[in-house]
C-alpha cells in the first residue's frame, strides 16, 4: 500500500473516531424511542364508539394493536441484541440506526392508517387509500428489516466485535435473510395482487417469531 493511501486512510479513520459512539451510550435513547412508539400505538384504539358495530371495531383495533406491538417488541429485541454486541458504533452504523429509529417512529401512525383503510382492496395499478396505507406500512417494515440486516453485515467487518461471536452472527444473518425473503414475497403480493390486502398484519409477527426461533435453535446447537 502506498504511503499516501495509508496516511489518507489513517486520517479518515481518525475523523471517524470523532463520530464513534459507545453502544451503551446509544441504548437509553434507543430504548426510549421504542418505549414511546409502543405507547403511542395504543392511541390507535378508538376513543369514541358509536352504534352496534362498536364491539367489532373495538375488538379489531385492540387485536391490531397487539399484533403491531408484538412486531415493535420483536424488532426492538432484534436490533438491541445487535447493538449490544457491537460495543462501538461508527458513522455508517450510526446512520443505519438513525434511519431505523426514524422508521420505527412511523409505525404508530402507519398502523393507524392501516386500521382505518387497510381492508380496502387495491394494487399498484389501482391506488386506493387502503392500498396506499398498506404499501406505506409494508415498506416501513421492509426498510427496518433491511436496516437490521445491513447492521448485522456491518458487524462482520467491525474491529470491536469479538471473534468468538462470529458464528452466532452468521446464524443471525442467515435467519434474518429468511425473514427478509418472506417480507419481500409479501411486498410483491401486496403490490401486485388485488386479493392480498392487510393480511400481512398477521403474517409479519409470525415471520419474526420464526426468525427468533431459528436463531435460538441454531444458537443452542452451537452451544452443544
Amino acid at each position, binding site marked *: 500500500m502506498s504511503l499516501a493511501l495509508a496516511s489518507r486512510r489513517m486520517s479518515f479513520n481518525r475523523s471517524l473516531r470523532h463520530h464513534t459512539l459507545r453502544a451503551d*451510550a446509544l441504548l437509553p435513547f434507543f430504548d426510549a424511542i421504542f418505549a414511546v412508539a409502543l405507547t403511542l400505538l395504543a392511541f390507535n384504539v378508538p376513543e369514541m364508539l358509536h352504534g352496534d358495530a362498536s364491539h367489532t371495531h373495538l375488538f379489531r383495533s385492540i387485536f391490531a394493536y397487539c399484533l403491531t406491538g408484538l412486531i415493535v417488541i420483536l424488532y426492538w429485541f432484534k436490533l438491541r441484541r445487535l447493538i449490544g454486541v457491537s460495543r462501538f458504533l461508527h458513522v455508517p452504523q450510526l446512520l443505519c440506526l438513525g434511519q431505523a429509529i*426514524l422508521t420505527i417512529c*412511523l409505525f404508530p401512525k402507519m398502523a393507524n392508517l392501516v386500521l382505518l383503510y387497510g381492508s380496502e382492496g387495491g394494487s399498484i395499478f389501482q391506488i386506493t387509500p387502503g392500498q396506499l396505507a398498506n404499501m406505506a406500512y409494508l415498506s416501513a417494515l421492509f426498510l427496518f428489516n433491511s436496516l437490521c440486516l445491513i447492521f448485522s453485515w456491518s458487524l462482520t467487518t467491525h474491529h470491536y466485535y469479538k471473534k468468538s461471536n462470529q458464528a452466532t452472527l452468521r446464524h443471525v444473518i442467515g435467519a434474518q435473510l429468511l425473514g427478509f425473503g418472506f417480507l419481500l414475497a409479501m411486498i410483491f403480493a401486496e403490490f401486485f395482487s388485488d386479493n392480498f390486502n392487510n393480511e400481512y398484519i398477521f403474517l409479519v409477527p409470525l415471520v419474526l417469531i420464526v426468525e427468533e426461533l431459528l436463531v435460538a435453535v441454531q444458537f443452542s446447537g452451537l452451544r452443544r
Partner: protein
Amino acid sequence: MSFPIDSFWLHHKLSTKSTLPLFDSVFAVAVTLLAFSLPDKLHRGGDLGQLLLPILIFEFIGMAILLYWFKFRRLITLARLVTLPQLCLIFLGLLTIVLLPRMAELVLRYGGGSGSWSNWTLSQTVNVNFLVALFLVDGFTLVFALSLRRHRFVLKTSAKEIGISIRAQLAGFLLLCVLATMELILPWFNDEFIIVVPFVLLLEEILVARQFSRGMGARKRDLPGTATKNGQA
C-alpha cells in the same frame, strides 16, 4: 464574611450521567411525536404524494433532530459535570425541541404557501416560527459549547475538540442565519428550508470530522485500539 459561592453552586451541579437519561428521553419523545404530523386521513382518488411527501418531510426534520441530539449529547459528555447555567441551557434546548413536532405539523399543513416580510401570510408565520425554533436549539447548543471553553471540569485533552466543534457550529449558525434571511426576504423561498437544514447540520459534522482528522493529530482517546504502547494513535 464572604459568601461560599463555590459550595452554593456545587449544590446545583449535576454529573453527565444524571443529565443524559432525561435528555435522551425528551429527544426520543420528540422524534416519535414528529411522526404524528403525518395525515390522519387519506383522500380517495389521491395519488402517492399525499402520504409520500409528508413521510419525506418527516425524514428530513427527524434527521435534523437526531443530528441535534448527537451534537448536544457530545458536548454534554465533554462537560462531565454540568453547572446551573449550563443546566438552564440544556432545559431551554429541551423545551424548544419538544416544540418541534407541533411546529412541523403546522409547516406540513400551511407551510407550502408563499410569503415574505412585506407580504406576511399564514404560511410565512408558520415557517418563521419553525425556523426560530431551530435557531433557538442551534443557539443554545452554541452557547453551551462556548460555555465549555471556561469550564473547569473539561479534560485538557478535550479543549481542542471543543474549539473545533465551536467553529463548525458557528459556520452552521451563520448558514441558518442566511436561511432565515431568505425566508424573510424572498417570496419564493418558503418551506424549502426543511430540506436544507439537515444538510447544513450534516455539513457541520463533516467539517468537525475533517478538522479533527487534520488538526488533532495523534491523540490518546479512551477508545480501544487507538492508543499504542508509547501513547501514539
